[in-house]
């Protein structure tokens, strides 16, 4: 069985926000919505102060709270561990947003434009074709790239064309992707050798996103 997961190296992330821009462009996300973010936090008091950068995405939890509460089956978990939303089934009730312990879900209430009063740009036209309104959205691990890649015999996490764009583009190589069920995959090895941590393990959701560093 395959269970796709991501490893994020906090030592390497420099908060350039390339992943955020990359995700927004990959999915043509509207203003105000970012499926991938970097949380920048300051800790301490001058001069003993530091900054931490924590990239976050949907955790694609093994026991995903969002899947459990979805009344229509719109949010569902694929065999490969990726949690997706079927927009055609989503009724916009947003239970999943309340259930998600990570705040990783976003409601696309209505069409927002980057240039109010200046019409719709070709990018936004493309976005409109992909993104419905009145539904909940979130990081998909770029599932379409993975599927297209697999059809071509590519390996997600190894071959760029089959890898989530935030991982493929990350300029510090702080992000890794692969099969958590394969003990020999890069992600499995990184988690083992670096004591990979999940966010809020006490929630019992068993996230597929691990942090190292």
């Amino acid at each position, binding site marked *: 069985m395959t269970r796709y997961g991501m490893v994020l190296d906090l030592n390497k992330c*420099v*908060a*350039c*926000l*390339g992943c*955020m*821009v*990359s995700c927004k*462009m*990959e*999915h043509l996300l509207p*203003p*105000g919505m*970012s499926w991938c*973010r*970097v*949380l*920048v936090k*300051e800790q*301490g*008091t*001058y*001069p003993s*102060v*530091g*900054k*931490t950068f924590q990239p976050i995405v949907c955790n694609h939890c*093994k*026991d995903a709270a969002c899947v459990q509460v979805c009344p229509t089956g719109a949010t*569902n*978990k*694929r065999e490969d561990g*990726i949690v*997706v939303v*079927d*927009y*055609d089934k989503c009724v916009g009730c947003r239970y999943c947003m309340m259930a998600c312990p990570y705040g990783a879900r976003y409601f696309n209430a209505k069409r927002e434009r*980057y*240039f109010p009063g*200046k*019409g719709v*740009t*070709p*990018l936004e*036209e*493309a976005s409109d074709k*992909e993104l*419905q309104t009145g539904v909940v959205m979130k990081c*998909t691990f770029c*599932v*379409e790239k993975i*599927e297209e890649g697999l059809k071509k015999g590519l390996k997600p996490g190894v071959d*760029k064309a089959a890898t989530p*764009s935030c991982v*493929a*583009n*990350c*300029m*510090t*190589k702080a992000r890794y992707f692969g099969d958590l069920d394969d003990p020999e995959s890069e992600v499995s090895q990184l988690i083992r050798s670096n004591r990979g941590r999940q966010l809020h393990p006490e929630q019992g959701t068993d996230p597929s996103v691990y942090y190292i560093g």
Partner: protein
Amino acid sequence: MVKQIVNETKGKGGKTGKAIEKKKDDVWIPTCCWFCVMGPCLHRYHRVDGTVINVEGNTSEPGFDEWTRNQGRLCPKPFGLIEKVYNPYRVKSPLKRTNPEKGLDVDPGWVEISWDEALDTVAKRFKEIRAKDPRGVCSTFHSVAQMGMGGTWEAFYIAFGPMQDVRGGSGMRCGLGVHMFANTIHGAFRCSPDTNNTKYLLILGSNVVPSGGVCGNLNYAKAKKIVVDPMLSLTAAKADEWLPIKPGTDIALMLALIHIIIHELGTLDEEFLKNLTNSSYLVGADGHFIRDKSSGKPLVWDTAAGVAREFNAPDLGDLALEGIYTVDDQECKTAFQLLKEQMKQYTPEWATEICEIPAATIRRIAKEFVDNAQIGSTIRLDGIDLPYRPVDVIIGRPVEAGVHSYQNILAQHILVSLVGALESVGGHMGGCAHPTYYDHGIKPGADGMPQPIYHEFTWPPTCWSGCEAFVPFTKIFGHAAHLFWINMTNPPPGLPLPPPPQAYLRFRNNAIHSVGETEMVVSAMKKIPFIVSISYTYDEVTQLADIVLPDYTELERYDVLSPDYRLGSGRRFRGILLRQPIVEPPPNNRDISYIVTELADRIGFLDTYNNMINIRFNITDPYKLELNKKYEWVDIVDRMCKSLTKGEHDLEWFKEHGAIITPTTTEDQYNVHLHMVKEKIRYPVPYMDVVKTVGENLQANLAKVGVDWWSTKEYVALPSYLPSVLDTVPKEYDFYVTTSRLPQYSNASNNDCALHNEVMQQVPGQYEVLMNAGAARERGIKEGDEVWIESPIGRIKGAVGLSEGIRPDTLFMAGQFGQSVTPVAKDLAKLSVNAITPISYEWTDQVTGTMQSTIKVKVYKA
């Protein structure tokens, strides 16, 4: 346990369940990006049904992921190029002004005109001016336009005749100071660590880690980093240690480090100092090299022979590094002896009083620096033995731009020289060498060091910046452009200036926001009777223009980057890279090359222009342009492709493959070191006799013409501590302001990209006026409060962000915002420190000509 549902994904992202619509046009197109000096990077853009929707690092050809700067990765900036294509505020037709009154808040009354009318209007005016003196036109342009990525712009600029050169990084864009001394010292355009091999970096005031793009990140990550910065920048946050230095005192730290290495540790790379620097040159009582009476060559002390000999005498014995000697009855000392004596006073205890870094910390850093340098070690790369000194000192704009910047740059180079890390493996390298100048840089001069390049004193000056008269070293890679704007508004009394410029031709940069004292620059610009703006958007300079010529964005046009143009930091590859159109441009816009070709033809110098294209792009027979024929840019690009590949590949081949690249050899990467050893050339450090000599000549020349208001006292051979110019600011201005390069914006003009601006909000403090939380509490200022930031020349109002990661006496403001006209950018309503940064002769470094970048202000609630 969650029930797992098998879901065949059909739509994008597996979300809609709709069948994928078959696209008529769905391609990835290879191209390259060079929007910052860390490039070029290889990218490919995704176009679907005529719309460019995405970009990624290009790894489609062998070696692309291994040797290129970006290694298949992306920094945040190229996404901005997509946004620019679809910016609804683009200028989409040539325009002419109908309202003669000019001002940033005055409607120009644009009317659309035809290209013929626009080009004829410009050509007629320029032709008249050029017939009298081409210097009647002044010009500024984006930095990449001079790096071979601006079509035929540069050929036009040169062939037109000497325009008044107002470009230069006096503002936010560039550090500037390092350029002329990187060249003087090691024949380069700029300096950077040997990124692939360095292990220990002392980083002063530079946000290089995120802003250095992919190259900066991938390589710097491996080194131990000590960041010295008044603010906990993103670079400092990722460092092993952050030292919050008092702004403007970096020189004290560097001098103390030199003191410790020489006087306390005594661990020096003596072999390097004796053989590859001027440390052993003898210096007389007048502060100049002692020279052989007949040959005029500088002398060194040969300890074996016990006599002074010419620096390049055959069979020289071991040279004296230190000591006092007598030559021709004249007492003299080695250059290193003088350095040692001068550095004696700069103890860590002295420095700590000034820079506020504890003496024990300074000692520890010095020890770590020396230990990591591994003096004496060599490394064999591809069969070549090279010195291995994996340490470097990086200085950022607040340190290398401003009064005393020469002292800082010299101290930086002396620091790395003491441990032999200049041009060593892992050490301090020259990057981005420009072949046209590069050869000059390491051509041996008469004194056995690189031939220096500087302006001969010219009086009266021929340019309104007066650089030839006041800042001679700006001849190479530098230009004190801000002096131009000062002289246009408030020139020093009695300064004879040429006739005022009659026209200003601007291509893409924004002098109004990238210099300082915004109001002064605007008032100076308004004095120029005819302004032509080549621009893609309605920005501040365009607002003052008479004619606007809308050009293509980077995703709508061609460029070819030739293989020898630059190597740059890392020096991992050489190549021929194509930039190609990804999408169709707006129908009534034109490429920069079309615009300047038409102007050259209509003004009447097509022949010299075509000749310059042949020269600048190395187009050789049989592909050379005929001199009196008008060519389309795409034809010239095809000729470049064929010429550079000796007929092997044409444009069509490059459009498919994107680039030809090969990895650099060890000889390429360490060519400066190998060249210096082979040709027996020494680096002109630690003793900058040439600067002292040029300064003395300058002083004499200025005295002859009666100028007593421009000092040359900083033209010294050895660095020294000089009190900061900020000490002269009244005490009521009790905050320093420091600035930094932001990774999403640096060198990319992305502040008119809405998506970028939205994402940027994720990092607190990058936009705001950032203030220490404790200092704010003392003043009753809370997060988000509106405050006035007032410098001696003006005040601006904005919201405060609070942070513990900044000194209590320092504010942080980026310099990339503050636009009042540029669509989208102006909606940010963020401040720019440039607006209240005073520009004046007093606040200009006498040697590098750079303007003061750290300033002092007072802060109070609005």
